[in-house]
């Protein structure tokens, strides 16, 4: 134990009649230097735990969801140009740089087929992550229940908790020969009650890659309307949709615009995750609360980056629907990588779940029957599997009997992964 030099007893408040003990050690560990209650238990983060491992350059990183392919050159050039303009190196409008919000209202006006007010119905945030945070802080209160569909992007639960809400989980389950991941409708309906403030959906989904169909979204919408709840729709992978599938925005279903916040991401749209720009789109009576959070947390996002994304979107707007459009060409490129990865995994004896959208693929590893008893026996199988894979030089993420692989990687990365996987076959 560290040296306890002195024990000092302090009487805190007469009314409460509580005693606080202040231990003096080298670091003056004080009761008052403890964390605020809102972040109790939220310090653990799986990414932080594993990324230091993944930083090893000899490891093929298929774990974290970011591209190692370059962004489109005109987007980088747009940023270089923006940085040369004096005014664009200073603060811009807090709720979103005018060039960017106007470009978004044009692009999404077309997608939603409605007039979007760039100043009242759009908020620019620090990535899709920042959008989620603004949404939760603005609209979720102490005691509210928020329905979250499993498997889910890991930040949903801690964000709901930090806002004082209670996460209510419902799993997607594998049914039938077609191996569809679906919600059980009765089970879903049973999760809604008078305390339900919102349901979070993510389509295309991370990690499974499921795209919710129109009828699935309609079923969710019906429940939202029946129980008068909000819907937070995380659609950061909205452009990454593969052949035979269609991305549907729940906000476009009847009765849903007024109760939905839709989240988008420049990082995922233009393969620039390091730019950390995202947006929330919704009716002004909801967006204004997100704007209040923004005003009291960050105030404004970086200007030159917003200008560049705005210019990029204006360019894509002209090309929408054509093969030249980055939204289309990226999806086509990724479909090829998706198919390649699925083939690689099948050859190793694993069963990939081929995604309908997004850039992740989950793989059932039970067929590998990997003996992990030498990895220690106090952790779940999937944690041990990931660690084993890291030792075998491939980094990925996991849940239950599945691992998650990211395929928005250049061909040389996929080549390296293939070589490693082939070597397991021999082993």
């Amino acid at each position, binding site marked *: 134990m560290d040296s306890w030099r002195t024990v000092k007893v302090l009487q805190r408040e007469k009314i409460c009649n509580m005693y606080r003990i202040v231990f003096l050690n080298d670091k003056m560990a004080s009761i008052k230097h403890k964390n605020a209650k809102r972040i109790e238990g939220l310090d653990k983060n799986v990414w932080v735990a594993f990324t230091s491992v993944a930083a090893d350059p000899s490891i093929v990183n298929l774990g974290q969801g970011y591209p190692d392919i370059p962004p489109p050159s005109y987007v980088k050039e747009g940023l270089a140009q923006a940085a040369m303009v004096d005014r664009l190196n*200073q603060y811009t409008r807090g709720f979103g740089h005018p060039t960017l919000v106007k470009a978004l209202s044009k692009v999404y006006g077309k997608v939603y087929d409605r007039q979007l007010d760039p100043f009242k119905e759009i908020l620019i945030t620090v990535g899709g992550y920042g959008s989620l945070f603004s949404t939760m802080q603005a609209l979720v209160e102490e005691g509210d229940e928020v329905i979250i569909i499993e498997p889910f992007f890991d930040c949903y639960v801690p964000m709901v908790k930090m806002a004082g809400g209670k996460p209510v989980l419902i799993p997607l389950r594998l049914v039938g020969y077609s191996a569809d991941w679906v919600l059980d409708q009765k089970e879903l309906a049973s999760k809604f009650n008078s305390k339900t403030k919102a349901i979070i959906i993510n389509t295309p989904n991370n990690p499974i890659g499921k795209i919710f169909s129109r009828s699935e979204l309609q079923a969710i919408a019906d429940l939202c309307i029946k129980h008068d709840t909000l819907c937070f729709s995380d659609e950061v992978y909205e452009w990454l949709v593969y052949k035979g599938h269609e991305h549907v925005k729940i906000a476009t279903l009847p009765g849903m615009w007024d*109760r939905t916040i839709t989240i988008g991401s420049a990082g995922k749209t233009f393969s620039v995750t*390091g730019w950390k720009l995202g947006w929330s789109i919704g009716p002004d009576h909801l967006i204004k609360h997100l704007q209040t959070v923004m005003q009291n947390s960050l105030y404004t996002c970086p200007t030159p980056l917003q200008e560049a994304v705005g210019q990029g979107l204006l360019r894509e707007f002209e090309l929408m629907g054509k093969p030249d459009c980055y939204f289309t060409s990226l999806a086509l490129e990724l479909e090829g990588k998706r198919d390649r990865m699925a083939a690689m995994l099948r050859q190793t004896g694993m069963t990939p779940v081929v995604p309908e959208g997004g850039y992740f693929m989950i793989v059932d590893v039970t067929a590998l029957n990997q003996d992990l008893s030498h990895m220690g026996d106090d952790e779940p199988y999937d944690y041990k599997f990931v660690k084993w894979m890291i030792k075998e030089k491939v980094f990925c993420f996991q849940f239950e009997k599945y691992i998650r692989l990211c395929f928005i990687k250049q061909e040389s990365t996929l080549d390296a992964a293939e070589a490693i996987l082939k070597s397991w076959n021999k082993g």
Partner: protein
Amino acid sequence: DCSAYLKLCNKNGHYKYILQRILSSSVSSHWPCPKRKYSYKNKECCLEEEVEFTQLAADYKAVNLGQGFPDFSPPSFVQEAFCKALNGGFSMHQYTRAFGHPNLVKILAKFFSRIVGREIDPMEDILVSVGAYQALFCTFQALIDEGDEVIIVEPFFDCYQPMVMMAGGTAVYVPLKPVCCGPVLSSADWVLSPEELASKFSPRTKAIVINTPNNPLGKVYQREELQMIADLCIKHDVICISDEVYEWLTYDGTKHVKIASLPGMWERTVTIGSAGKTFSATGWKVGWAMGSGHILKHLKTVHQNSVYHCATAAQEAVAVGFQREYDVFGTEESYFHQLPIHLHEKRLRLADCLKSVGLKPILPQGGYFMIADISNLNVDLTDPSTKDEPYDYRFVKWLIKEKGLATIPVSAFYSPEHRNEFQKYIRFCFVKEDTTLQAAEDILRQWSDSK
């Protein structure tokens, strides 16, 4: 819409007041109720004012000395670093380390270790944030609980109060006041009363927020003043949140002192810094919080659950900027040496012009801003649209409409309790191009000639 105060008794027998505002939404009456922290928003928030007055200034095509950012470019070495970063390989456009890009935290640790006089751990003792604003947000969210008191020194940068409120805390104000005797010509003449300050500390005090150099006053706290605050922090076991975004901008040989460098203070201080103010690139939104790891870890938890990462290329560019400044620190080549010299003159020029029309400027020891006493001026403020507003608000609007010069009213930087005592000052930003300041001078000269 309707509003109602509900008095609730929580399980400890303490009363909690909740303001509930039920929106007149056509969709529902049971939601969405914004949290009480946002419902009670101080309507006279300065940034809102800045937004409101900016619009007015634009409408009247006024020369804008209201907004607090430079109208000149960042130094070329930092702009070049940014361009180099974004041409520097795919990793510059993808996520970097969540708590701060390694190159940046390492150089910040190196740079500030030298200044603070202790070994700062880049990974444990530093958090990079989206501007100093987000660093402040993380600090309050991480450390302030319901019922905690936070002492705020007035006049204050307006975001402190809503951030304290958002964290469920109670703001307790203590004003800097001009000394009662002698001419009050410098920000150094505005001081805290030691007795009054000491009286604000209670068993519920969690933190005190200081800002040095100060916005809007420009005061740079002297070592003795900081020692007085430090003594109280140690005595009452309170955390010090020290907003030092203008740390490189001090004039007339005034030295900026870091309260974290005083004995017993490193363990209990969070120091906030800004690349935007350091390198005249406010639009990059790169800032940081620095302090002992046992406190910083809580800020990291907030950060990882709110924004998680900051933009990579901007961080890389700031890192290159700091490395360059580390190498030339203390020499004439240093931007931290050149910028204050550059601004020193602008400050004096503006002060002279203000005096010529009967305004009484308080010469700032540091920062971007100068306040001026308007009480001697007799102008016709009978504009009916501003009838019920504080005197300085009305004056600022008159100045925009009648003279085409935009500023900010200083009472916006005060708490509701003390606002009425400080209605006779307006704030000017002098970190502007010579042409802007010249235009302002022309307006003031014309005004003076017409008297």
